[in-house]
């Protein structure tokens, strides 16, 4: 009898679908690396460097086909391009037509794409469609898996948007960014994007018209929050389990927005006063819209952009931002003067969730326990610009 049970169990085990493995995609100032593991996430295999010497701002695997990988690249001297791979980075091909602005109307300054900063696969019903956000701020779309790109936004030369874009002096130290391009999984025509600076924006008609979403957001003291140009969202995320809930790490605090409301609530006020609620990245739990992680940064005086007091750590909320808990086990306890950039923190979809972040000092940290304990996955890499995860077979 026992033998029969064992045989049945063995047979069922064979039939049960294997739990997916995890890939951690790391983009840096000097190239890209891919780390792969099985569902246990204990042992990692490395591939890379890919594009050694290239600035890779973002690398994303298409969850719709599980095989198309896009990487946004440039070098210090050469212009921007986008590479694509369908074998998890074994071979790469370059875009035939990378994102590029159209000529502007007479009297308006022509803008050139300096680099693609953000990549987002479009809706599940739109295979091969991708969006790209650039610096300076522009929104582009590819309908062939990243091979050719065309301006998507109808606002690139809109005088109002031009004012909100500002000049190169109005963006981040590395140039103004279009980022956080988000597609509503219920509606391919419902998109969000954010600009540093230039606020959060939304379309419900596939880009024909856009509205701003800045109500409730603070701006730097002394400036008028009614002026969209003064709004600096650092990272906006949609909750995977509840597309009506948005989270935002802003230049001026941590916020939550529950649609259909259009007013952001500053949930970062519940963070410890000594730490504050300034930071760059934001990550949401894949199955619990009340759970999110941030990585606080020193935004005082001249904005050192380091961990406050040299003490890095994630903070997690499990109740929609009412309270926050510090998570530092395994991380340096003093003199760690690095931070985490806006797209350099990500979660996988395993249970418990794996959380990963890459530092400005070139380390990748991983937690298989939803941030409760951290270990180093990689070190001595160049400055890390982006970390993404993907399910792999």
């Amino acid at each position, binding site marked *: 009898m026992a033998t029969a049970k064992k045989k049945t169990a063995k047979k069922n085990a064979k039939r049960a679908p294997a739990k997916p493995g995890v890939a951690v995609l790391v983009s840096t100032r000097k190239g890209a690396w891919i780390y792969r593991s099985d569902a246990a996430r204990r042992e990692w295999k490395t591939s890379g460097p890919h594009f050694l010497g290239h600035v890779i701002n973002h690398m994303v695997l298409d969850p719709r086909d599980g095989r198309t990988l896009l990487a946004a690249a440039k*070098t*210090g*001297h*050469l*212009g921007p*391009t986008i590479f694509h791979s369908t074998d998890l980075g074994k071979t790469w091909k*370059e*875009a*035939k037509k*990378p994102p*590029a*602005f*159209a*000529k502007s109307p007479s009297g308006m300054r*022509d803008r*050139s*794409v300096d680099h693609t900063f953000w990549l987002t696969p479009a809706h599940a019903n739109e295979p091969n469609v991708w969006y790209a956000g650039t610096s300076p701020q522009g929104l582009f779309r590819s309908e062939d898996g990243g091979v050719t790109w065309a301006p998507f936004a109808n606002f690139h030369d809109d005088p109002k948007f031009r004012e909100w874009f500002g000049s190169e002096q109005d963006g981040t130290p590395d140039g103004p960014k279009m980022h956080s391009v988000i597609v509503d999984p219920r509606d391919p025509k419902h998109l969000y994007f954010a600009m540093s600076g230039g606020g959060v924006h939304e379309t419900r008609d596939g880009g024909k018209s856009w509205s701003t979403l800045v109500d409730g957001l603070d701006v730097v003291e002394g400036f008028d929050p009614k002026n969209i140009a003064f709004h600096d969202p650092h990272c906006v995320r949609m909750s995977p389990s509840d597309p009506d809930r948005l989270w935002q790490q802003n230049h001026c605090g941590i916020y939550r927005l529950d649609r259909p409301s259009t007013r952001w609530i500053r949930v970062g006020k519940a963070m410890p006063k000594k730490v504050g609620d300034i930071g760059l990245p934001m990550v949401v739990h894949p199955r619990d819209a009340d759970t999110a992680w941030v990585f606080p940064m020193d935004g005082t005086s001249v904005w050192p952009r380091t961990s406050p007091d040299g003490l890095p750590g994630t903070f997690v909320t499990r109740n929609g931002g009412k309270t926050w808990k510090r998570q530092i086990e395994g991380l340096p306890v003093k003199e760690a003067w690095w931070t985490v950039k806006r797209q350099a923190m990500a979660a996988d979809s395993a249970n418990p969730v794996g959380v990963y972040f890459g530092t400005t000092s070139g380390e990748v940290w991983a937690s298989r326990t939803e941030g409760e304990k951290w270990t180093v996955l990689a070190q001595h890499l160049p400055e890390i610009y982006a970390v993404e995860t993907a399910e792999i077979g």
Partner: protein
Amino acid sequence: MKVLIPTPLRSYTRQKRLVEADGITVGAVLADLDRQFPGIRFRMVDEHDRMRRHMRLFVNGEQVFDLSRPLKAADEIAIVQALSGG
């Protein structure tokens, strides 16, 4: 005419240092390079036909920014990276 390719762009030219390209202007030569080595032009010249900030192009040792600059068959072109970035 002969065109000297800098090391960062040789991934496009199968690592060739010197390549042949035709054209009666600088812009036409760059277009011919892009025909032979797809993608190479956009790494040097932006979408509004401006040489990128850190790229330089010399014709017979003379620095050129104007893509409409006429060329003769015997001219030699050198594409280099600006000495910037430390």
